[in-house]
């Protein structure tokens, strides 16, 4: 099972990109493929576990609200009045005409997002989820159209949201969007093109870009190396520092074992990229907007601080990922979900304010995503894995104040509901991703490469929550 020469070249190239050290090698100039003028960034806020869309975006007109309460009586009982209509955050829709008499509101913990929505800086994509092609309830029941694999399974649907395929997928559309920016030949730094506060995110993985990890305290340093660096002026200190740095970067390492080589590359990328990133952080004033306590606030602050040093890092297109867990509310939903919604609300509002402080609010678009929506039916004190959900798109460039797609009526048995109210998406994830890609500057060809099923939806009107980049077509 030896590597062929051709394979070897391929893996060698991939490795160079992984380390970021030899990224110059990869900056081959292709024909101008995408527009990378100015700066643009996408921020994915992933709500791990499957957010309950029906407990986030509420039907607010009295008859439909009453219907919702009836359908989910035991859950409303658990809330003990906290989800009473008077406490919800009503939305003012600029496309109210599309919904007739129906009205909508957000959970009581989301006044900030309601404010952004009503100011036109946030939109809601309703009933969105993974699809291969437009699908009706009947087609689902008849199994007459191809469906996304392994529906309702956490890991597989996380993967499908991020990469249009179940677990095992290698490339996420965030990474492929960044690849397109790389291909424009502007010499953007690959190693800082996709950035996460988590781990090795599939969403941020492209052919040329791999996620770089930051936190609000910056990337981690090697204490041993830092200590040696501080003593370089002492006798023998410089030689010692150099040996140690060579050790941690693995530059001398020769073994041909693939796993060992990957570890060597990971150490190398870590040392080199963290040094670069830390140096860049020292050159720019910190963001002064205050962020709420909690994981999401701290993570979005780290993203804001990274955007603040975009020039020093030599990037004009970036994709970010932050994750927050706890949404798999099979149980104790009334106890657990409101706190999470409060975190989302506070952190996103602070992030938007930080983007305004940095003067890039027109250049940064944030959106939420999740494994799946949840069942309309209640299992006692929680809800189970569903399919379509409702998500937010936030930013100065967003044509907000609108709900795009649909918010199905909260009635069991009308939509695709094998008894429990799992909704067939009326908008596909790729249809939601496409306007962000066009805004990011991708050409149609690049968009179709990143979103493999998008062409299947060609007959439907595009969701116009972002204007396409004028130079990209």
């Amino acid at each position, binding site marked *: 099972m030896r590597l062929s020469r051709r394979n070897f070249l391929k893996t060698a190239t991939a490795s160079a990109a992984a380390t970021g050290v030899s990224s110059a090698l990869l900056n081959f100039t292709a024909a101008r493929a995408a527009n990378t003028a100015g700066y643009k960034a996408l921020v994915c806020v992933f709500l*791990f576990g499957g957010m309950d869309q029906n407990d986030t975006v509420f039907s607010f007109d009295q008859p439909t609200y009453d219907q919702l309460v009836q359908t989910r009586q035991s859950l409303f009982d658990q809330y003990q009045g906290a989800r009473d209509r008077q406490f919800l955050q009503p939305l003012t829709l600029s496309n109210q005409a599309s919904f007739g008499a129906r009205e909508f509101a957000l959970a009581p913990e989301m006044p900030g997002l309601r404010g952004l929505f009503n100011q036109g800086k946030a939109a809601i994509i309703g009933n969105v989820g993974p699809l291969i092609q437009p699908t009706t309830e009947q087609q689902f029941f008849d199994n007459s159209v191809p469906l996304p694999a392994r529906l309702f399974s*956490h890991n597989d649907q996380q993967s499908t949201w991020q990469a249009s395929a179940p677990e095992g997928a290698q490339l996420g559309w965030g990474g492929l969007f960044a690849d397109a920016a790389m291909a424009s030949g502007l010499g953007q730094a690959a190693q800082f093109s996709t950035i996460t506060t988590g781990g090795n995110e599939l969403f941020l993985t492209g052919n040329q870009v791999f996620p770089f990890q930051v936190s609000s305290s910056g990337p981690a340093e*090697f204490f*041993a190396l830092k200590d040696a660096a501080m003593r370089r002026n002492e006798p023998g200190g410089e030689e010692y520092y150099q040996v140690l740095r060579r*050790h941690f970067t693995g530059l001398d390492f020769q073994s041909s074992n693939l796993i060992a080589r990957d570890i060597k590359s990971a150490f190398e990328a870590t040392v080199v990229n963290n040094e670069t990133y830390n140096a860049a952080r020292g050159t720019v004033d910190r963001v002064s907007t205050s962020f709420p306590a909690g994981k999401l606030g701290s993570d979005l602050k780290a993203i804001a601080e990274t955007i603040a040093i975009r020039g020093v890092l030599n990037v004009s297109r970036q994709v970010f990922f932050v994750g927050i867990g706890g949404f798999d509310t099979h149980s104790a939903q009334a106890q657990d979900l409101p706190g999470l919604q409060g975190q989302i609300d506070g952190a996103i509002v602070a992030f938007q304010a930080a983007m305004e402080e940095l003067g890039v609010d027109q250049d940064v678009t944030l959106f939420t995503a999740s494994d799946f929506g949840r069942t309309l039916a209640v299992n006692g004190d929680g809800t189970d894995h569903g399919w379509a959900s409702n998500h937010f798109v936030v930013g100065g460039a967003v044509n907000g104040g609108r709900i795009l797609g649909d918010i199905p009526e909260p009635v069991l048995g009308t939509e695709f509901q094998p008894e429990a109210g799992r909704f067939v998406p009326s908008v596909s994830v790729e249809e939601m991703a496409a306007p962000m890609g066009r805004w990011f500057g991708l050409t149609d060809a690049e968009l179709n490469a990143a979103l493999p099923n998008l062409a299947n939806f060609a007959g439907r009107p595009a969701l116009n929550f972002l204007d396409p980049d004028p130079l990209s077509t």
Partner: protein
Amino acid sequence: MATRTGFARIALTVMACISLAACGGGGGGDTGGGTPPPTGGGGGGQTPPPAPQPASDAFETEDKTARFLAQATFGPTPQDIATLTGTDAVDWILAEFDKPVTLSLPITQDLRQRATQTFDGQFYTASNTNAFWTTALTADDQLRQRVAFALSEIFVVSNAPMGVLFDYPDGIASYHDILKRNAFGNYRELIEEITYSPPMGFYLTYAYNQKADPSTGRMPDENYAREILQLFSIGVVPLNRDGSVQQGAGELYDNTDITGLARVFTGLVFDGEIERFFGRDDAAYGNQVLARPMVTWDAIHEAGEKNFLGTTIPAGTNAAASVDAALDTIANHPNVAPFLARQLIQRLVSSDPEPDYIDRVAAAFEQGSYALPGGTQVGTGKRGDLKATVAAVLFDRDARDTTSIDPNRSGKIREPIIRFTNWARAFGANVAPEYVQILWFIDRTGPLGQHPFRSPSVFNFFRPGYIAPGTQSGAAGLTVPELQITNSATIPGYANFMTAFVFGGQVGNDTSGIADLFAREGVTGYNDAEARAAFQADLSAEVALADDIPALLDHLDTKLTYGQLTPETRALITEAIQGIDVSGPGTDEELLVARIAVLMILTSPDFVVQR
């Protein structure tokens, strides 16, 4: 040349608490000679001295012994390497199978009862974590302990979401003990004990799960039904026995199977009063309830017919009989053997096992028996026998013979937790986790990014099918699960964590923080000398070799990398330490040399990848 002050200063800060007494001749580390007399630690029936030719050559040399123990235990100790080399590995595994179980629950209870503060107290809530460290690092039944940890990454329960499993440490401890007690038992019994365990019932939210109520639209919770199939038994697609996917066979089940099976897992409840432990008004009571099996309550069990995976459980079947029937169906599914075989190999031996290796282990699982080298059969002969399965994993030619498979595709990444335990056992670190606060919270990226029984979700820290994008192993199609948590945050986290331990500084001289915590939380038994000594390594053998770098590296190579330390790493370490003057008697520099060498090996690909 002058001392390398960079490390010297770190070293000197902790020098006071390290005894350098044993600096005498070179004997300590050189145990290559004759077989030493057996030490008392082993189980009954030590092999007598005039041993015949061993049936297995797995302990033929020190390097081979160490390599085997790296796969089968939480890490070889110098004593194990010395004692076992030259003996028969078959005898060793048979003895391991017979050793009594070292349980976590009694240790957890002893620890938590030392604290006055219970809920929200760090010492109290860390008690099961500290029982994990104590048993992993010091228990005599090492194979069982190591296999139980592997099982904990397949049958995942986690207290990461806090809540009940954080409030009552006995819950996780007793779950840990289920894995230990059944590690050499049978899969069918294991999955039943798991199903009835309160921690799983709570974690996957089926405790108190009720039958459907058509009048309100309430449906049974589907969480456990889905995950027991997807993660604990059969996966999602039909497999051949060698673990390969049956092409064109589609998926194993659809959502109607899940809703059908969800009806089975209704009517399981804690054996106690729910208000009392959710109200957090009695720690002792809650701990008791969390440590005893759930019971059935047929009034809330779905009495109607249940259909899943082609099985029908007739209407009127009660909860216990329904669970029994469902677990029989699941445990007898042909996917279980390759599904578990592959993951056990991945946890112990190889990230990307060859199909024929999976097939041989799956066969042992199915047949319930395995012939060890020399012909001794292990296992009961009943499908699902884990003794046979574990033996098949460890004695397979792909595990033992390093030339059996392509050297470029072999090996696995040691998980961060295992890297730490390997270090601690290799250097006789003084195991006292109750004084080392960082060991209570190692899931954060800063320390190891991994914590026993605290994975971020039921999908563990990494997935068995993970192929890392943008890597050479990924381009070659290798699954390398641990690469999923290897990145520019966790790498420095690991290196820094180990730097502090290697240089004696996780507690070292400053015990004020842990002393304050003991006082604040009303923990009895504080002993400052023990706190200072906690996890200090015994480097006397290495210090003795500090003036002979090649001998020092040979010695560490056996201990940590089993003869696989590369010339490049040796050259770098040599370059780093050769200028340090160790000519004076009993100098601090000898310890410094040893520590730098150890740290550089621990942070080299040679060690991080176990081959």
